[in-house]
């Protein structure tokens, strides 16, 4: 039997919610993040409907195949994160470190691909905060003309998400460093669990962003 809320010596249960305080705090933080990303995504959808000529069709400017692969990488990193959590629940220190390292590598790879994508897009003419963009189309090499809103909203949303992933990778490194010091045990692994909550939330947000920004 596995436990997600195993009895621990260092966790203080919050009387009202039934979960330990650290975890409750992370959930409340994530709920504030929901509002943050709702503001960004909601604004994007409204601007897109209000100014359709500013925006290109899916795949016209953005590299959907590359980003679909990157989405898959982030989903894989969520799996490695839950594997790390499952490992430490069973007291498997080696498994914890191995899966955490895999998560770090996959997360860093995601950020790296996003940087490569940004470099390619800007070199092709798709830039933020311009009066208008004239990007090189992907399918036939034709020039795609659009307004400033597309670049501004695209880089705003994916940039903020990428920042969250980068912060997540740094936090994962800290968690990995603590894991190497043997700070987590089968009965005390709250840090791994809340790290996982943040990481899965970042994955969840990207799932929505990928659909809204790249496919619709």
């Amino acid at each position, binding site marked *: 039997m596995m436990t997600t809320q195993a009895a621990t010596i260092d966790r203080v249960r919050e009387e009202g919610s*039934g979960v330990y305080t650290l975890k409750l705090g992370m959930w409340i933080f994530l709920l504030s993040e929901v509002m943050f990303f709702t503001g960004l995504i909601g604004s994007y959808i409204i601007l897109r409907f209000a100014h359709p000529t500013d925006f290109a069709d899916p795949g016209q400017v953005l590299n959907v195949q590359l980003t679909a692969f990157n989405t*898959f990488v982030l989903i894989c990193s969520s799996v490695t994160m839950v594997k790390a959590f499952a490992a430490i629940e069973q007291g498997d220190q080696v498994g914890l470190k191995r899966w955490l390292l895999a998560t770090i590598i996959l997360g860093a790879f995601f950020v790296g691909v996003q940087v490569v994508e940004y470099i390619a897009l800007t070199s092709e003419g798709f830039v933020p905060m311009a009066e208008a963009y004239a990007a090189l189309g992907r399918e036939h090499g034709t020039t795609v003309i659009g307004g400033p809103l597309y670049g501004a909203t695209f880089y705003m949303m994916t940039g903020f998400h990428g920042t969250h992933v980068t912060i997540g990778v740094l936090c994962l490194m800290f968690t990995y460093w603590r894991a190497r010091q043997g700070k987590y045990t089968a009965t005390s692994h709250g840090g791994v669990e809340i790290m996982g909550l943040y990481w899965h939330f970042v994955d969840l947000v990207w799932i929505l962003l990928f659909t809204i920004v790249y496919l619709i």
Partner: protein
Amino acid sequence: MSTSEHKQPPYMTVWAVLFVLTIGEVFFAFSSVPKRWIVIGLVLMAIWKAVLVAMYYMHLRFEPKRMWILAMSPLPLAVILVVVVIQEWR
């Protein structure tokens, strides 16, 4: 201390479903289906994927009901936020 126990969630099955849905989304996005149905289908698939991540990877399915209420609390606020912004635009 909390002692709620459950069997290990089907992590790999969820991963496989997420993978298939991601591939399905890409193919569906470029299909010849009318645009309106593409948008509806893509949104439904994205919500399905997001719910799977929240339920199984974030373990929301195994949390107390109070946590569910807490987790759902920003959703009506998010709707209000979007509706207010739409009114501003109109």
